[in-house]
């Protein structure tokens, strides 16, 4: 078998890849679109993204920065009447220190997305790699990470973060890293490991061994690509978890963040307006609703993706 020059000249590989990627994307979109809940989720997420994008535009056009700044704004026309109920000038009213609630809501969307996505990406990258490694090597490595995951899951997550914030100020980036790392070594590792175990016993893994591939090559080229769809799915669920955690911590005022949905509710609570529940509804309902809705949306997208990843859930 001497390699001779073959006249065969294939199309450049990147072209093939792009073509195949588009094909796969179209098929997967069709499957995703079949489940209406996924579309609803995606719709809500797009709505929040639009809201996020609209804020800087509004600030530079119709909204006077001194009045509408989400952190330092104050409406002098309404002195003594804050928190003011919704009006034309303030569609969602103002908070107890005279800031525009709608502006706060829109501005915070950006940090919620940043936090949710960063934390989810970190946790899924960790979970995928650790899960694949545990499944492939087994033994002591597997034992160590699985027990770590058990510990992680049993440990009260929010309590741990509360303790940590007393040691160092929890900024948005730090919080995203912490949530990402902590949940990355937690339950997601177990789920992805079990998926990797089903991949590990496939004959193509043996074929790769016989081909002479090293353990890392096999993990990287064969195991990880085959558990990626599930990783992606859990990424969606993890965004929900991260946003939720942030809201809880901000509400209790444990975070070093200037503004977020959790902090909006916290402000209402601090100034004693949360007691009169229905009377000052614009102080808590928009933020609470936004948290619920965005978490819900990511969860729905996750469910929609589930149908793509998991053939058993498909209709037909």
């Amino acid at each position, binding site marked *: *078998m001497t*390699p*001779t*020059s*073959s006249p*065969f000249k*294939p*199309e450049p590989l990147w072209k*093939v890849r792009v073509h*195949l990627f588009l094909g796969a994307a179209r098929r997967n979109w069709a499957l995703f679109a079949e489940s209406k809940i996924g579309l609803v989720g995606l719709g809500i997420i797009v709505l929040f993204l639009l809201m996020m994008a609209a804020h800087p535009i509004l600030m530079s056009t119709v909204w006077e920065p001194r009045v509408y700044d989400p952190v330092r704004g104050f409406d002098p026309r309404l002195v003594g009447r804050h928190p003011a109920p919704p009006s034309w000038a303030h569609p969602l009213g103002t908070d107890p220190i005279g800031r525009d609630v709608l502006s706060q809501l829109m501005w915070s969307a950006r940090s919620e997305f940043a936090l949710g996505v960063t934390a989810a990406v970190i946790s899924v990258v960790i979970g995928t790699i650790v899960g694949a490694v545990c499944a492939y090597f087994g033994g002591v490595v597997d034992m160590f990470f699985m027990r770590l995951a058990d510990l992680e899951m049993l440990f009260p997550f929010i309590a741990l973060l509360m303790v940590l914030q007393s040691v160092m100020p929890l900024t948005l980036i730090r919080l995203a890293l912490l949530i990402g790392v902590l949940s990355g070594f937690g339950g997601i590792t177990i789920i992805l490991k079990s998926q990797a175990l089903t991949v590990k016993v*496939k*004959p*193509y893994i*043996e*074929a*790769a*061994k*016989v*081909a*002479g*591939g*090293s353990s890392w*090559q096999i993990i990287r*080229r*064969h195991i990880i*690509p*085959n558990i990626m769809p599930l990783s992606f799915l859990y990424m969606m669920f993890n965004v929900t978890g991260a946003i939720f955690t942030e809201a809880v911590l901000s509400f209790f005022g444990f975070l070093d963040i200037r503004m977020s949905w959790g902090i909006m509710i916290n402000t209402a609570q601090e100034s004693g307006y949360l007691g009169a529940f229905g009377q000052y509804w614009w102080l808590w309902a928009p933020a609470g609703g936004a948290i619920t809705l965005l978490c819900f949306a990511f969860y729905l997208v996750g469910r929609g993706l589930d149908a793509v990843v998991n053939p058993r859930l498909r209709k037909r």
Partner: protein
Amino acid sequence: MRPRAGSTAKGSGAQAAASLGESVLLQVWRLKKYFPVRKGVFRRTVGWVKAVDEVDLFIPKGETLGLVGESGCGKTTVSRTILRLIEPTSGQVLFRPRSKSLPPVVEVTKATKRVMKLLRREMQIIFQDPYSSLNPRMTVGAIIGEPLIVHRVARGQEVRNRVAELLEAVGLKPDHMRRYPHEFSGGQRQRIGIARALALGPQLVICDEPVSALDVSIQAQVLNLLEDLQDKFGLTYLFVAHDLSVVKHISDRVAVMYLGKVVELAETEELYTRPRHPYTEALLSAVPVPDPDYEAERILLQGDVPSPVNPPAGCRFHPRCSYAQAICSQETPGLQDCGGEHYAACHFASSLALRGVKVA
């Protein structure tokens, strides 16, 4: 020294096994694989599954050895152990590599990682299931090219040229390399698996039931392809199968396994026409004969295959053997040469008159 398989175990020490005839490519000597049976909280080992128990085999260069036996007799374990996909419990596997950077004869079971990687170029495997043996997320080109990239024997355009050649050699088109495995039929997928096995130009190819998962018309095509490739590239095959007619078609010699042991080993025609072991006779009687007037006299074996955790004493076949006598439950027969390189592990190998089948 070639008929090592004939050494009746006792007396022939480890040094005897280390010799390997010039023409022999692979020799398996007293190969054992016991899997632990674990129980309880502390995963205590309470017994051993004797999947492969002292198997002796050898394959001359360029030949095909058929390895047959019923499900669970250890055929697949033998093939995996030779490739070190499963680590053997004990025994030796001697291989004569072509590579100049290796000694003339390598003890595979003791090979280091580096040696093993070099050996991978010369020993390859074709899998039974053409569906799960190809990574669904890789293109055919990437699958076949993987061994070339891993061993750094080719890169870039060279890999694609080589893959194109291999695809043509197995009867597929070069532009199939851009497709994914799910776009192919079972037979085509098996051809892809064969191309992958041939990528590094191996000497020995272990065919682990390569046609069992295919339908009959495709089986013949793939078998013919394997024969053509053997002629073209001078391959040596260890052909594991449970279908006796397939094995008859492709093998030069056949080894019959029962419950982790080789019970008979002979040239194909010799084995089919004049079996020397009662188990072989029973197996052969189950082969369908394409003749409507033929009166089949099936030998129906009594009982089930005993558990390999606790195999019967003496000859492992004795509880189901119609010729069994007192000695069979007491002494384990070794493989004996019955003349003409026909080996059988039966106390009465030379005295029984057993019925074979006509070889077409």
